[in-house]
């Protein structure tokens, strides 16, 4: 038995009937058991609340079934930022090795649930081959960034040979709380590819998932909840960019925003609002997340701050 996460298995389409209350029943050969449906929720501070707004948006899957996703609100973002801020320094203070093992653990959890991701990606329109490739690449990408947690600081730091009698070095610290507006087109890989470097650098994040490919994000939240990532380090919301983009960009306790977009009006809005508190706005559009060049430590560097420390040399 594969998944319990979606309303239906695509192959079971013909045997399913929608009941009057909108819930689907699954009749399977040799079993009269009624399948338990999953409620798709958002992920804030390690918990799975519904949106405080009580709203939803329907998502039609390739098997014709419809799932209801949380239509998150500004208040959900604000709650998530509180959680992300609360834990940020504690997360940053963990040893690089520890963060590395936690990200690796996340990859392990993803691997064990890969069949569910493959299935969901197909329900959201991917071919079986593409779904498998996206899931595998996402797992490998997590492992890639897991390995960087205790290494990037060596690569991006420096001991600076100043002319005066001082010891002087520059090391890297996380920017802080980052809002991520993830790729619309790539529900799993597009999210993992930006979330992993952000948290590897010691930041915490609030993610707005792909609206049309949101199942992977919700399931990823479940994977995160069962890995050792502390509550609040990653928060994942579902909803619409149209409503939430401005709130992701204008929050005064957010230090950086990572926007995936090639739409001029979205970019301008985010950059304009970022000026409110000198937010770092990292904007990109990646057409092919499978490219090896899309995994590199410079994505970590984009969300770190260089700190230079001086101390006199002498008696």
């Amino acid at each position, binding site marked *: 038995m594969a998944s319990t996460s979606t309303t239906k298995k695509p192959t079971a389409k013909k045997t399913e009937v929608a009941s009057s209350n909108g819930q689907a029943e699954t009749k399977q050969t040799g079993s009269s058991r009624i399948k338990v449906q999953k409620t798709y929720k958002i992920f804030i501070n390690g918990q799975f609340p519904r949106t405080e707004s009580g709203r939803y948006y329907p998502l039609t899957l390739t098997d014709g079934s419809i799932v209801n996703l949380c239509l998150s609100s500004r208040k959900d973002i604000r709650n998530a930022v509180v959680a992300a801020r609360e834990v940020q320094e504690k997360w940053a203070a963990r040893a690089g090795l520890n963060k590395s093992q936690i990200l690796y653990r996340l990859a392990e959890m993803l691997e064990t649930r890969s069949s569910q991701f493959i299935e969901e990606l197909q329900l959201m329109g991917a071919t079986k081959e593409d779904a498998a490739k996206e899931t595998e690449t996402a797992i490998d990408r997590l492992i890639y960034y897991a390995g960087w947690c205790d290494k990037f600081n060596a690569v991006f730091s420096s001991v600076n040979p100043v002319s005066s009698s001082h010891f002087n070095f*520059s090391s890297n610290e996380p920017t802080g709380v980052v809002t991520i507006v993830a790729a619309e087109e790539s529900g799993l890989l597009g999210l993992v590819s930006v979330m992993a470097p952000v948290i590897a650098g010691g930041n915490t994040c609030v993610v707005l998932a792909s609206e049309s490919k949101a199942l992977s994000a919700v399931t990823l939240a479940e994977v995160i909840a069962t890995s050792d990532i502390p509550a609040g380090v990653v928060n994942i919301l579902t909803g619409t960019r149209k409503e939430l983009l401005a709130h992701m960009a204008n929050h005064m306790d957010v230090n950086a925003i990572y926007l995936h977009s090639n739409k*001029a009006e979205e970019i301008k809005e985010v*950059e304009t609002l970022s*000026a409110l508190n000198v937010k770092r706005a990292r904007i990109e559009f990646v057409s092919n997340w499978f490219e090896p060049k899309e995994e590199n430590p410079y994505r970590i560097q984009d969300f770190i701050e260089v700190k230079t420390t001086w101390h006199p040399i002498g008696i």
Partner: protein
Amino acid sequence: MSKKQDKKHQQLSAEPSLDFSKALSYTPAPESSAHIRLKKQYDLFINGAWVKPSKGGYFDTINPATEQVLAKVAEATQEDVDKAVKAARAAYENVWSKMPARERAKYIYRIARLIQERAREFAVIESMDGGKPIRESRDIDVPLAANHFFYYAGWADKLEYAFPGKNPESIGVAGQIIPWNFPLLMAAWKIAPALAAGNTVVLKPAESTPLTALKLAEIIEESGLPAGVVNIVTGAGATGAAIVNHPDIDKIAFTGSTDVGKLIQKAIAGTGKKLTLELGGKAANIIFEDAALDQAVEGIVNGIFFNQGHVCCAGSRLFVQEGVADKVIRKLKDRMASLIVGDPMDKNTDIGAINSPEQLKKINEYLKIGVNEGGEVFQPNCSIPAKGYFCKPTLFLNTSQSHRVVQEEIFGPVLAVQTFRTVEEVIEKANNTPYGLSAGVWTDKGSKIFNMTTKLKAGVVWANTYNKFDPSSPFGGFRESGFGREGGLHGLLPYLKLR
């Protein structure tokens, strides 16, 4: 407390006892300005030539210590900026981006050498135009500016080693806007890495201190740098806005206030221009009980009174641990009584002239605010010249986190003093600001230093020292103090695309 200790304590709490004006008097030791070459009027430096401003406007630049006009300086309009950008674009496309990197380096080395040769002239003009003590312009600003060019020259042909796995490429035309507190040094911080990375430049110095940037243009002319690689346009806010909004500029680098930085960030939103901002600060300078107190007092003085406090990284919030607070404040008052405020050209002067009447007005407003908020004000009993813009070094004692003199950047010789008991408390207080440019920590315990330097949210942390700068040392802020670094390997990144 024993009687002996009590007596000692009372002595320490007394008013400062050192009055140098009576015990000792310094003979004036003025630096000569006879050797400098200043023109009566400066045009714009565009495409390797001196060009009259299109609307024919000129403004005066004055000596803030004497209020006398030093020269007339051209006011660049939109049209002039456009001319400068066109020159920079052409130089970028046709010459500078095609030149072998090591040849590029040689021009930058040459500029460094020419500054060194004319260092004293630059120091004198810097002090005359901006009001900073000649000791500082001579020993800090000018040598650092020359060294900055020398340092970045060497990077030009080594860029691929700075970014492993990447192929760094120049960006194009950089528009650079600099402040009035370190006029030549900021020009060097901006121009040197831009050129080393293969970009061309349109730079606007501050309207109150344009002269050393114009003298630098003379050096650039003399160096034979290809025409248009560096263009220097003078003017005020409107000239800056013309640079920021110019469609053919690829990168903006700005040093100045957080308010203007936010306006710039907003103005270029959606244009695809790259941006670095080096903005304001309100640095905590933290003195622990176990610090070497006399050194710490020197550090406090250097932290806030260096360059009249016109320093974005000035240690303008002092935190002293309670056990030594009386002692430190007493020593600080004594030390302040020995500071000489006056003629920037005098080699004895510690605190020169406030840069402009506008800035003096702003500082005086904060002095009123501080008093009205209930801060206890202390100023030494020193004399200040009748003419020119001067401000006595000032302490505000008994301040708290909610006071405006604690929260806002004053950009003058005004220090807000608070006390603390525990490490946790002072970290919380120090970080409780939207800024994050710099910080200072004074303690003799190594593990305490590293605990503090790790937890302070600041781009530069000085431990048992303050206000030190070096071309190889990255400088820049966290949070609302800006983004991007200037200096060192990290200072290259804002001027490169990584492919």
